[in-house]
């Protein structure tokens, strides 16, 4: 396959033919939702429905994104279509920012408002005499035994370095693509994926450590809640980002992308940098202060 396609200047906007991908995706999400509901309520068969939903979802994404890549490489997308993709990716990342904002908001609220409130004289007199306004806080009725919060300067600091470095290697790969240096592109992408994978491995190790030795669990009051929700949601995003990078690497190996036409690569890079920035914020407010 050649990578020499340049975006067509034709003044038309590609409108795809009728498609069965969307309804496949709807069925997938319905099965996923139903399966989750059944599983969470411990109803038999739930896991099966959930798994079926995920399978259909992955299949749908595989064929749908495959089709988009094929249309792009086939030169069907004019410049204007490219601009649409840029706007859409930007707005999508904005929606993700707001999703994270809800969880960061929960952390700030619990720490700045709920904690001192619960330890106020009024509450101490009426409800919990021993409530203390100390962070990390597992709540006045916590009885899960002593726990040690995660230190910032061990694994989390290493993870920060890993993600920052991966941002650099990704930019280096982008430069390789721009200068048609495919070797640099492939190596840069590979390094980025590897750094992401190491990050995820360390994060998993940290979770195991937290559960087995530090006694920090999801049930460790509001501290455990926000800790696992924020880092878990972020880790999920790293997983998605790394998967997208792997797809991009496969496309690079298949000869896709040219110095002029490679928004698929750029979109994933935007996403990766966004996940990176979220981690920095997370490192400061979850681990450090």
């Amino acid at each position, binding site marked *: 396959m050649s990578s020499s396609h340049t975006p067509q200047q034709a003044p038309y906007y590609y409108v795809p*033919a009728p498609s069965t991908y969307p309804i496949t995706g709807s069925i997938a999400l319905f099965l996923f939702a139903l399966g989750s509901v059944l599983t969470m309520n411990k109803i038999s068969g739930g896991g099966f429905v959930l798994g079926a939903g995920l399978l259909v979802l992955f299949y749908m994404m595989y064929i749908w994104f495959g089709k988009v890549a094929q249309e792009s490489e086939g030169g069907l997308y004019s410049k204007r279509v490219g601009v649409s993709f840029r706007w*859409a990716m930007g707005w999508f990342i904005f929606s993700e920012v707001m999703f994270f904002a809800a969880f960061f908001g929960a952390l700030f609220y619990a720490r700045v408002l709920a904690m001192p409130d619960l330890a106020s004289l009024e509450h101490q007199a009426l409800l919990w005499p021993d409530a203390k306004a100390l962070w990390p806080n597992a709540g*006045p009725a916590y009885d899960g035994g002593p726990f040690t919060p995660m230190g910032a300067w061990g694994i989390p600091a290493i993870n920060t370095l890993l993600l920052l470095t991966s941002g650099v290697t990704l930019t280096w790969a982008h430069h390789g693509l721009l200068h048609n240096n495919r070797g640099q592109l492939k190596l840069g992408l590979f390094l980025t994926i590897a750094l992401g994978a190491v990050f995820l491995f360390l994060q998993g190790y940290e979770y195991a450590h937290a559960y087995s030795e530090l006694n920090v669990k999801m049930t460790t009051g509001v501290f455990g809640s926000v800790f696992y929700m924020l880092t878990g949601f972020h880790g999920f995003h790293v997983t998605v980002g790394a998967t997208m990078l792997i797809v991009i690497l496969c496309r690079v190996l298949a000869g896709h992308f040219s110095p002029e036409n490679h928004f698929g690569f750029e979109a994933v890079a935007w996403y990766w940098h966004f996940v990176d920035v979220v981690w920095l914020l997370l490192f400061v407010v979850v681990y450090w202060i």
Partner: protein
Amino acid sequence: MAAIPGGADHSHDHSHDHHPSGLMRWVTTTNHKDIGSMYLWFSFAMFIVGGIMALVIRAELFQPGLQVVDPDRFNQMTTLHGLIMVFGAIMPAFVGFANWMLPLMIGASDMAFARMNNWSFWLLPPAAILLTGSLLVPGGAAASGWTLYPPLTVQMGIGMDMAIFAVHILGISSIMGSINIVTTILNMRAPGMTLMKMPLFCWTWLITAYLVIAVMPVLAGAVTMILTDRHFGTSFFNAAGGGDPVLYQHIFWFFGHPEVYIIAIPAFGVVSQVIPAFSRKPLFGYASMVYATSSIAILSFIVWAHHMYTVGMPVAGQLYFMFATMLIAVPTGVKVFNWVATMWRGSLTFETPMLFSIGFLFLFTLGGFSGLVLSMTAVDVQLHDSYYVVAHFHYVMVAGALFSAYAGAYYWLPKWTGHMYDEKLGKLHFWLSLIFFNMTFFVQHFLGLAGMPRRIPDYSLQFAEFNKISSIGAFGFGLSQLVFLVVVLKCLKGGEKASAKPWDGAEGLEWTVPSPAPHHTFEVPPVVK
């Protein structure tokens, strides 16, 4: 393939090539007009479902005591009525208008992402199945009110989980739909169609879509935390674990207040198209309309706690939210005066779309005023969770958003179907709706002021008269909506042929294409001068 100059030699599968027929046409379509029609029909179906739930509520409240449903079912009815009307009826109605009209108004061939557009729609039925299906599961549907406040929501059964996942799916649908709309408006305008030349409906949808993208994820985050509190032992909303149920209210209303404008702003857009057309004058103060709508959108992010005056906020916080809320009356007032000024000395005619717009103008303003009353902390502490609140937001949601949707539907029906609708029946629909709407909801102001709490299936005897009036009005209102169904079906089957521009005062690119609008329009973008 005349639309593709230069004879592009690729074999691109343009939608002319193979048309699936029958049901598969609707399942697989990538055409914005097909998808717009599906949104509108889905919205009307959900309106009937949510309406039947409202009638169950009103039947129970027809007289004091418990007659029709047990209190638990009653609570499920109020919850599902709210969720279905907000997410299933009103939002999809305006997304339907957006799908149909935006490409026609800005001279684009379709929406920016035609396949994703299909997906946005086809995510709605699964969510609807989860919501309505939850009535049948053990323990019944969510019964917490549409706001899904903990700790109630942490306690309920499997129906609650179904509601949470339904909200997630609806969120995905509306975020994708809104990204599509923003991209279409920003990137697909015909040459010469500058932002400040766009019909105001496009502006209002641009701003609405921005609001959706900003706040739907926040709602998703809130219900996700409910889900983990329910099943994974977290303590976000549990004070014993250091969390706070009030935290949920903050996050929910950070979504919830902009949501009000997600519903209202496209309604403003429709009315801003209809009133100039039937006043035969351009919209008064177009630029100020754009700025006012933008200010409303920005202000909507910083007023959320006016829904929470009674949870125990510091006085400084209450004062701040009170004044910030009152501030919204300024841009809203600008809009109301602009609509009135558009009509001033216009050569007015009163076809059904105009009647619904004028109905909107009066009754929405009334709902705005009762909102101003509720924005005052000291007053709200008395009226909180009373029928005054119910009356207030139904003036905004029904007489505001729904009347505007009807105005839009009658206005564009000739363009969609190629036939004029039955004007007599349309007018009948309007007058019946107007009378029964006020009969249902105006008296609820008095009930609230007298202290009748909402979401309770029983009440003390002194509220009996007004409740009886309200219930009769509600059934009248519900039946009147069937007139609309008759009008639409008649219009689809036949009627007087509509010209390309059936309203002599109407302006915009949508009136330059034939009626009914052909399946594909503006494949070569028009040039706007």
